[in-house]
């Protein structure tokens, strides 16, 4: 049992409570009130400090790459269509623990197949701290993941194996969806079409996004564009399709600058009801944890309101992954996944994470090694 006293509490939905207390018990947020006093509970003085819901990276390969081997566990490169490949079988707790994502406040990820297959497989949501994949697993499947971007061509086409062109990629995707949708047998696409889970596709250029939208326009589904460096160039089509966007990592190989990505324009689809988030994962896998805040700062510098940037880090990714009933905001009844910063890290470089809680456990305290 913990009481976090007098913090500046960012709910995650845009509201901020100053000098309120949070009671954590049995892994959950039990009370949010002023002046909670309970004997024998551990107290954390958060006066003047900023309390956030644990951050969520909605598309991540951490834990799933088997990085000591050249053959990676998140890309089943034997076939460009592998809908039944489940990322949960690739998730290795000790590998994700190496990156210590929780030290910057990332408490959950959407573990995903990589970007080398047109349909790469089924995503799962995991906590970023824990002793076994079973304990860390939040839910699966949380999405069907695919890609129509350069890595697919590079993976197959370079070896003279189908697909080596965008026409090959998109035609294959179109056929796959058509066949799976009309099939009498149960399959993962049916769950996408029932809107149980979203379709997450790695797609970068506006031409690729428009081709993808053309393919899915006849289906009722929740499309999530990830990567999306040129999503700003076809924003109206994205809004019309009620699609969500997870912007890929911005700094590696100068991706954002070369694409001249207008982050404010992408963020503004939130005003039309769309969900926007961002990720440490770019075209070729994830970057290190310090860049998570750099990417948040990218949106803030582009003119996006501070609390709206926070939504992209918390409630929006929770909604995209279908986890908003248990994660994504500081509300009574939700999982006690929290991070406490000295000051607001979206505004000040000097800000340091001082505590991280996952499932009610203090998994990080500044100064601990």
């Amino acid at each position, binding site marked *: 049992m913990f009481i976090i006293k007098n913090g500046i509490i960012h709910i995650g939905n845009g509201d901020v409570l100053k000098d309120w207390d949070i009671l954590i018990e049995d892994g959950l947020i039990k009370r949010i009130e002023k002046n909670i006093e309970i004997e024998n509970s551990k107290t954390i003085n958060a006066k003047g400090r900023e309390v956030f819901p644990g951050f969520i990276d909605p598309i991540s390969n951490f834990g799933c790459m088997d*990085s000591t081997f050249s053959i990676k566990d998140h890309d089943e490169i034997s076939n460009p269509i592998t809908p039944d490949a489940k990322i949960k079988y690739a998730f290795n707790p000790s590998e994700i623990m190496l*990156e210590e994502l929780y030290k910057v406040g990332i408490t959950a990820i959407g573990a995903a197949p990589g970007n080398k297959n047109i349909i790469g497989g089924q995503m799962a949501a995991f906590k970023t701290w824990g002793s076994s994949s079973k304990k860390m697993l939040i839910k699966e499947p949380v999405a069907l993941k695919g890609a129509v971007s350069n890595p697919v061509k590079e993976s197959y086409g370079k070896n003279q194996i189908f697909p080596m062109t965008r026409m090959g990629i998109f035609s294959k995707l179109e056929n796959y969806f058509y066949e799976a949708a009309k099939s009498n047998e149960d399959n993962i696409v049916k769950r996408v079409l029932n809107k149980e889970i979203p379709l997450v596709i790695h797609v970068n250029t506006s031409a690729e996004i428009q081709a993808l939208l053309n393919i899915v326009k006849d289906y009722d589904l929740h499309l999530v564009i990830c990567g999306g460096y040129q999503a700003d160039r076809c924003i109206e089509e994205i809004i019309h399709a009620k699609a969500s966007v997870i912007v890929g990592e911005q700094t*590696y*190989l100068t991706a954002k600058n070369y*694409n001249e990505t207008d982050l404010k324009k992408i963020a503004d689809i939130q005003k039309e009801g769309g969900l926007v988030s961002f990720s440490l994962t770019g075209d070729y896998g994830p970057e*290190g944890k310090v860049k998570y805040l750099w990417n948040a700062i990218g949106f803030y510098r582009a003119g996006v309101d501070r609390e709206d940037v926070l939504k992209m880090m918390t409630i929006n990714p929770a909604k995209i992954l279908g986890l908003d009933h248990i994660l994504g905001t500081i509300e009574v009844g939700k999982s006690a996944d929290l991070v406490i910063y000295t000051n607001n890290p979206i*505004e000040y*470089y000097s800000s340091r994470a001082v505590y991280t809680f996952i499932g009610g456990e203090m998994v990080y305290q500044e100064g601990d090694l």
Partner: protein
Amino acid sequence: MLLIKNAKIYTMANGIIDKGDILLQDGKIIEIGENINHEAAEIIEAEGMVALPGLIDCHSHIGAMNFSNFTSIDDANEMTNSTTPDLQIIYGTDPNSKDFQFAYSNGITTLGLTPGSGNVVCGLAFGAKTYGKNIYKMTIKNPIALKVAFGGNPKGVYGKRNQKPSTRMSIPNIMKELFKEAQEYMIKKEEADGNNDKMPKHDKRLEVIIPVLKKQIPLKMHCTQFDMLAAMEVAKEFNVKFTLDHAWGATDYIEEIVESGCGIVFGPIGSKKSHGEARLIDIESVVELDKKGVLIALTADAPILSIDSLIHHAGEAVKEGCELERALRMITINAAKIMGVDDRVGSIEVGKDGDIAIFKGIPAYNTDAKVVHTIIDGNVIYSD
């Protein structure tokens, strides 16, 4: 003639002036003080703004590398021979690259442009301003260093071809053999004392190493983790000036670094942790090294990371407990010193080049600090 009025000036030479003016003429800073007035000068009102010397990244590959969705250019790694000392990166650098625009629009006015690390002895780096159409006119000094590389990069290139070096075991030896050859060449030249009959046959590959052996330019040594020890050993054996570039894992070698007297060019950070070279990516090490008197600069290694993330690096040093002004030195005067161009750039002092970045907000402190004007050689070349 340009007059910047009422700015908070981080001089990087003589402390911080809370509210001061800077007068620029003929491309140079000619006066710094309070209440400077000059009728002929164009005025930039900078009340409430911050003036810094133009920012510097002394380890960059822009103009010679570009890996995007649309193009894959690498003119910085001539990976056909593991020792290419006489190759000049200036010949691979395209000033029309958009990365230069990304640099100056973020207040970065000088770069140390260097060959990549695919070879053991990679070639010659140079220093240039970030604005211009002709790289030779943008150049401040060429060469500024001879670049050499340890570890996974050269090993990965040649090992895959079953060529040398395929292991760390042979990398220092390749350097040492070349430097010994250059030493002998230099001695023969000195002994010939201008006598053409006794002069050794001109060898450009060895010729370019002489300034290193004479401590006129440093070795720019790409290394991380325990490769640092090999780098320091090579540098010590030949008694040369050097910097350790990238320097991930420096925390474990603080004593050796301090004793060696070398400079450190730290970064880029933000790679995922792994085994081997990415075992420890410790920007916190620069705080302690700086306190112990080691000359530290930071690098984004652009375009591996976007050039503007140089400022994130300084911000991360601040997060780790570095004083703001010390962190800003790591992207201004310290970088200029490492490049050997601190007589021209890196601080706001009378006589130096008129390279000034005017920010709204303080870079490396306020995450949304933005460049309002970038001035190079006394000309406003960018305004927000």
